[in-house]
């Protein structure tokens, strides 16, 4: 347990220090969402209808932006070798790394959502619905994205490949995340149905992600 806590503490600390890059994701999220109203124009009802989709797309792209550093940094400085050799099971270490990444890069997106909801003319209920779906959905983006990050770890400049690998896996999360938020704003489906499926996807990714990432790390090292 202390080993995993130490790993999470270290990764969060590095991400939050200068040059760690945790805030790049939030800044990107902010830029995308702030620019949308200018592109769409002053049609306020349209903005409300598109709001959840815009927030979700912004969050998805922002989480992709920092994902390639998840294992790459540790691979480059040799830390990954020692983590693989360590007595902590690699699956748990991967899960700890993903959790730390989500705390530093995913959670700030959820926190920023209420502010950005104002720009998209979302009322309090709609904003909290989007924030709730993001809270449940962004861990799934991190944990499935981790598989791609582990596959691309030995490739230099693997960022683009990572996006191509990960995007298809994040489509279901996007569909049900937006569907649940839309259900609150326009109906007619109840919020619970897509939201439960979103929760299920997250739970599956918590199990599959660490195992797949650990397997690909073990075979990919050289």
């Amino acid at each position, binding site marked *: 347990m*202390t*080993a995993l*806590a*130490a*790993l999470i*503490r*270290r990764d969060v*600390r*590095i991400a939050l*220090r*200068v*040059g*760690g890059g945790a805030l790049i994701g939030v800044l990107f999220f902010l830029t995308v969402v702030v620019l949308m109203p200018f592109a769409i124009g002053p049609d306020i009802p349209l903005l409300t209808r598109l709001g959840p989709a815009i927030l979700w797309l912004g969050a998805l792209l922002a989480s992709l932006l920092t994902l390639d550093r998840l294992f790459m940094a540790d691979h*480059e*400085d*040799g*830390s990954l*070798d*020692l*983590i*693989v*050799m*360590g*007595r*902590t099971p690699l699956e748990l270490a991967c899960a700890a790394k993903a959790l730390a990444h989500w705390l530093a890069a995913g959670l700030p997106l959820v926190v920023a959502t209420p502010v950005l909801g104002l720009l998209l003319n979302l009322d309090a209920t709609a904003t909290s619905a989007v924030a709730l779906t993001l809270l449940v959905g962004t861990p799934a983006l991190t944990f499935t994205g981790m598989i791609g990050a582990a596959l691309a770890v030995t490739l230099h400049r693997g960022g683009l490949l990572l996006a191509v690998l990960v995007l298809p896996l994040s489509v279901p999360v996007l569909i049900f995340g937006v569907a649940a938020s839309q259900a609150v704003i326009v109906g007619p489906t109840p919020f619970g149905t897509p939201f439960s499926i979103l929760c299920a996807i997250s739970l599956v990714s918590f199990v599959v992600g660490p195992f797949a990432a650990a397997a690909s790390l073990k075979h990919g*090292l*050289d």
Partner: protein
Amino acid sequence: MRLSGRGVRCVRGGREVFSSLDFEAASGEAVAVTGPNGAGKTSLLRLIAGLLAPAGGSIDLEGGEAELTLPEQAHYLGHRDALKPALSVLENLSFWRDFLGSSGDAGQNLARVGLDHAMHLPAAFLSAGQRRRLSIARLLSVRRPVWLLDEPTSALDAAGQAMFAGVMREHLAAGGLIVAATHAPLGIEARELRMELRIGGAA
């Protein structure tokens, strides 16, 4: 405790680096792996560390802890120092101590390698020799019987090399074993394992 390799074969990038290599090291013994660049010294250490899969043969550790695999009982000191530039010297060392599962005093080990004055300095500002000293402090913080060292004395000054020779001697006296790839003399008694460069065909 006895580390032995039988008929080990290593293929990297479709090219055979070495084959039918036998080696052996017992408790209290150091093996210096020597040979020209590209002979497979680092590859051999990474094979023992479980970071590469052997294309043939076997590597075993007899007399270690039965539930643990060989990599779990080994320290690997590679070219890359596994240090995070954003963290301080103490934070770097404390992390590896906690992650690798020990509860020693980090400050004491930093004093041993002569880095106690720089404890709160970010690792980004360390020189190559100081980074090496910090890696050596990691070997001291967590007890592992097998040390796999890749060019351990590179970048160390004369005092650093003497300090490290003392550290290695203590490790051997405590029943540990060392396999070190090196071009320079290690500063301790060591059995030489000479590797030849193979220029050659596809595997």
